[in-house]
């Protein structure tokens, strides 16, 4: 049900989000149908007819208590179902050795891999423009930052979204289950090139990823941005080149 509505989910915590989404969908859907049916029935039943007088009542305390307590209970239950999922997604970080540094700028994504030494900020770092490669079945940690304005890293099929805020580095994670090529648009208005600012996330099954990494991460020359542009570049993609130079100095961690 509703698969035509939500895009396919391929990441681990997406299940929890989708489950909650469907739960709320049913709760609100049933509430809506009940309210709408009552509403329309009342409008029909109590339409003005000659000789009838309206019921003179100022309310009913038991009824009002009932319809205060019921939604409260439902919402409390929803709260307690939401909070654990939130803390699993946002407040805990699974152990992983796979870390990618993501930097947003007007209007591209930069993905930096630490290279052979496993450290960022060393000469063997490899940076890719608008293209990210991850293995499946392994938690991926991303350290998200921005060079100019606020952007948001959104991968619909991972149910992943996190704003990239200049001046701070935000750690986030996801784990992909299904190999494929997924679109990662920017979800926070970041200027006139906001629309069309997107990256592709390639999820490779274990061995395929190793092959890719061997070819692209271990070599000498950093293939930054080589072939990173997807073929279907749209006119807006070309725009950033015309943009006035923007400040790219990144604030050192205070």
């Amino acid at each position, binding site marked *: 049900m509703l698969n035509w509505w939500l895009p396919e989910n391929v990441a681990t915590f997406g299940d929890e989000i989708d489950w909650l989404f469907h739960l709320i969908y049913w709760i609100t859907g049933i509430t809506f149908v009940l309210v709408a049916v009552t509403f329309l029935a009342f409008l029909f039943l109590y339409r003005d007819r000659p000789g009838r007088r309206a019921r003179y009542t100022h309310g009913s305390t038991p009824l009002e208590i009932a319809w205060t307590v019921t939604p409260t209970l439902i919402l409390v239950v929803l709260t307690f179902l939401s909070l654990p999922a939130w803390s699993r997604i946002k407040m805990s970080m699974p152990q992983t050795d796979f870390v990618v540094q993501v930097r947003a700028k007007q209007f591209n994504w930069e993905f930096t891999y630490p290279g052979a030494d496993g450290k960022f900020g060393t000469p063997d770092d490899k940076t890719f423009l608008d293209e990210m490669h991850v293995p499946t079945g392994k938690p991926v940690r991303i350290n998200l930052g921005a060079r100019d304005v606020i952007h948001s890293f959104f991968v*619909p099929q991972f149910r992943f979204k996190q704003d990239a805020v200049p001046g701070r580095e935000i750690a986030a994670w996801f784990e992909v289950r299904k190999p494929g090529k997924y679109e990662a648009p920017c979800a926070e208005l970041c200027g*006139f090139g906001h629309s069309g600012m997107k990256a592709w996330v390639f999820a490779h099954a274990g061995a395929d990823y190793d092959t890719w990494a061997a070819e692209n991460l271990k070599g000498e020359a950093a293939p930054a941005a080589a072939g990173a542009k997807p073929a279907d570049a749209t006119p807006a993609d070309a725009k950033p080149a015309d943009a006035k130079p923007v400040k790219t100095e990144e604030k050192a961690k205070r």
Partner: protein
Amino acid sequence: MSATTVHGHAAHAEHEHHDLGFIRTYVFSTDHKMIAKQFLFMGLFMLIIGGALALVVRWQLAWPETPVPGLGMILTETGGVIEPSHYNMAFTMHATIMIFFVVMPILAGAFGNFLIPLQIGARDMAFPTLNMLSFWTTFPAALIMIAGFFVPGGHAAAGWTSYTPLSSVAQYTGVNWGQNLWCISLFVMGVGSMMGSINYITTIINMRAPGMSLFRMPLALWSLFITAILLLLALPVLTSAAAMLLFDRTLGTNWFNPSQGGEPLLWQHLFWYFGHPEVYILILPAMGIASEILPVFCRKPIFGYHAMAFSMIGIAFLSWIVYGHHMFVSGMNPMLGLTFTITTMIIAVPSAIKTFNWLGTLWGGRITFPPPMLFALGFVSMFVIGGLSGIFMASTPVDIYIQDTYFIVAHIHYVVFGGSIMGAFAAIYFWFPKMFGRMTNNALGHVHFWLTIVAFNVTFFPMHIIGVGGQMRRIYNPMQYEFLQHQQHWNVIMTVGALVLGFSQILFAINFLMSIASGKKAPANPWNANTLEWLAESPPPHLNWGPRIPTVYRGPYEYSSPEGPEDWLPQDRLVVASSS
């Protein structure tokens, strides 16, 4: 001591009664009813601008990068094709104008001014001159906002939320004076709103007619009272944040510029600390108006008056501690996310209470369906959808996915258009006879309602669907994304709906203007309603009442009371106990 001073005001006002020139009667009037009309006309005029901007945005989304009919005259260099910078400007200004210069002036400005003195049985506001100044500060604010369209670099294009540093560093958007004027206009508007709010609050606290206790006040007054308090306390926070933004842009300070030690998230916190009460500023008056209209056309008392009043008070308190739900994925500390989830879930309860009480009001009524009632019912039904879709966002994990998608756009439009604007239409149709002394055309009103509600749902309901499908808000061209292309047909349907919605408002304009000019003369109480404003003539004279101020003996919703033979019992009628 106090009585003499208040008395002094009224007596003073009476000396001015006669021989006021044109300027004092129609332009710099201190009469609350004239000021209400000024706010109403200003709001409706700005509605045209805001609506036109919305249609431009919709056109671009349905048929990207094709010339917009008629826009070629303005955008000569592109032949009417919207460029991304135009597009960002259009949605930014659509939201800014609709929120600050349409909904607030119409609901709080026009109906606040019109209803407060009339419904509490006062002759005018507590501070009539301040009231006049309030309009004449809000109006220049609107002019400053419009002026932004004509400055080099275009108007503000960083979204109505103006997230920093996109808004605070000119080179990120290429907008220069547009954003500055945006800040200045909001300052000035803030001052105007402050004057208005002080007036509303003081009038309601001090000037109620004899017998008008707080719990005999019509619910519209409760809502306006609470709205005024929220306005008074929320807007200054925006003002100080906008001052910081303006200094960042003009003087070169660096509050929000992270490369110089500033903190972009500070803006979001300050903005939403104002912004969430603002949401309730927009919707509370509409709730009050619906609570006012439903009993009249159901001919029965409002269901659970006290629950209605207390739920509004509850909303007002809670609105200060839920603002973080706008920032769940902003990089805000996840601990705060936990806290704000709980408060956000709680704030849904008062809204639920209100909805059920409106349903309770319908139960057992004797319902008639003139245009004001249709719009009030439209408000209730659309608010139900808007309220329920809010629960998705309150659940933080779900919000991670739907934040910044069209689902949010759908939600806000169900609340602000389906809620506030429907409420505004209901109020205009309902109080039109009192404001202008003439009736509106019933048939046109019906057609206007049905076109509006159908086109509204065609326009905004699919936004839920494409939002869940992943379409981000504020994107210029959905066709740039492969995962969105399969749902592009919805964008076309929505735009067709929006065009119908926009053009069906012409019917309203015709009805409104024709009725002012040549509508049927309205009796004092065309709807057989109970509240005090219907005791005055239509339109009420200067100082509202004849020689005697009404005295209040009962609550505002005594319809079909067994005490009298008729099915209404005005608040001021003294019933000699015979039946009970």
